[in-house]
C-alpha cells in the first residue's frame, strides 16, 4: 500500500516512542518505505537491495523513535539521514568506519545556535519554497547531482554541457539554496 499524504508524522514517531504503537509504525512504513526504495533505485541501487535498505530504515525508525528530536529535523529529514547512512554502510560491506560515526558531526546541537526556531513543518515548507526559487537549469543539476548521486562528468554528458559549466552551475545553485535556507535550520 502507498499513501499520498501523511498526517502529522511527528505524532506518529512519538506514538512509537511512548506507546510502541504498531499502527503508527505501519503508517510511517507505508508512506516512507516505497519512497526510499524509489529514490535508491533511481540512483542505481538494485531493487532487491533498495527494498532491504527501506526495510532496515523503517526498523531503525522504530528502534530509534525516542531519539527523534523534532526541533532539529523533520521526520522526513530524519528518515532521509537514516536511509543515507544505511546505503553507505551497505556499500562498505562491514569494513571500516560506520556512516553513523562520520555523520555524528551533524547530529549534535551547537550551543551558539539556538535550535527549534521553527517547527519542522514550517521548515520543510521553506525548503520547498527555496527549491521553487531555482531556475530550471539549476534544478536540473541539483536533481542529478544531489538526488541521483551522479558524478559531475556524467551530468556534463547527460546535459551536453562542459564539465566546468556543470561545476559552476551546481555551486551557484547550492549557494542560492543555502542562502534561502540559512534562516530555517
Amino acid at each position, binding site marked *: 500500500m*502507498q499513501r499520498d499524504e501523511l498526517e502529522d508524522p511527528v505524532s506518529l514517531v512519538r506514538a*512509537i*516512542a*511512548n506507546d*510502541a504503537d*504498531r499502527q503508527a*509504525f*505501519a503508517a510511517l*512504513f507505508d508512506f516512507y*518505505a*516505497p*519512497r*526510499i*526504495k*524509489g*529514490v535508491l*533505485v*533511481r540512483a542505481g541501487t538494485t*531493487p532487491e537491495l533498495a*527494498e532491504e535498505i527501506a*526495510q532496515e530504515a523503517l526498523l531503525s525508525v*522504530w*528502534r530509534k523513535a*525516542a*531519539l527523534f528530536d523534532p526541533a532539529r529535523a*523533520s521526520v*522526513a*529529514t530524519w*528518515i*532521509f*539521514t537514516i536511509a543515507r547512512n544505511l*546505503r553507505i554502510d551497505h556499500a*562498505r560491506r562491514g569494513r*571500516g*568506519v560506520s556512516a553513523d*560515526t*562520520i555523520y*555524528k*558531526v*551533524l547530529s*549534535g546541537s*551547537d550551543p*551558539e545556535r539556538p535550535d527549534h526556531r521553527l517547527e519542522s513543518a514550517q521548515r*520543510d515548507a521553506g525548503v*520547498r519554497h527555496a*527549491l521553487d526559487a531555482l531556475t530550471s537549469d539549476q534544478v536540473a543539476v541539483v536533481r542529478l547531482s*544531489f*538526488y541521483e*548521486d551522479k558524478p559531475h562528468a556524467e551530468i556534463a554528458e547527460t546535459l551536453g554541457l562542459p564539465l566546468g559549466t556543470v561545476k559552476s552551475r*551546481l*555551486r551557484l*545553485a*547550492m*549557494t542560492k*539554496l*543555502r542562502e534561502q*535556507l*540559512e534562516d*530555517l*535550520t
Partner: protein
Amino acid sequence: MTIRHHPNDATLAAFAAGAMDEGRRLVVATHLDICPACRQAARAFEAVGGVALHDEAAALPLSADARKRALDSIEQDLASGQDLPAEKPAVAQAARQSALSAYPLGAWRWIGPGIYWRPVDLASPDTRVFMLKAAPGTALPDHSHTGIEWTAVLQGAFRHDHGRYGAGDFDEADESVEHNPRVEDGVECICLVAMQGQIRFKSLIGRLLQPFVRI
C-alpha cells in the same frame, strides 16, 4: 580561530546527500568538526534531502509481505525483551568524537626535508587520505595534480597563490590547480589531505623526491 576558507556549497550538499566517497567524506567531516557555519549549511542540505524524499514522485511498492515482515521483527524485538523504543540508549549522550579518531593511523614517515607523512587506513581505495606534517618555513615543491586534493588544516598555517590557510581552513584544489605551498614561520603545520590521482612535481628537486613521496 577565524576560518576563511570553506568547502564550496556543492561539496557540503554532496556530503549531506551521501554522494561522496569515504576519503573525501572524512576530510569534509574533519572541517565540519571545527566549523559551525558549515555544519549549519550541511544540516540545511539534509533538510533538502528530507523534502526530496517526502515529495518523491517515483515511489516503488515493496513486496507484498514487506510490512508484515517488519512488524514481525518488531514483535520479536518486544518479545525478546529488547529495549522499548522509549528507552534512550546511553550512547546518544556520549560526547562526540572527531571522525578522524575512528580511523587507524599509520606511523609518521619522513618523506623529504622537514616533511613527514602518515597514512590513514580507509576501507575504500577511491581516495587516499593521509596526514602531512611540515616544519615552519618549509616550502613544498611546486606541483600539480591529476585529481582532487582536499586539505583540512589542523594546526599551523601555509600560504600559496590562493591565500593563507590556517587551522580550521579547508583547501579544495582540483586537477586545474598548480601550486607551491609554503609553511608559515612559527609552529609546524599539520594537515589532513584527501587525494586522487597522481601528484606531479615540476622542479628537479621535486622529481628527485618523487620516489619517496608515494602518496
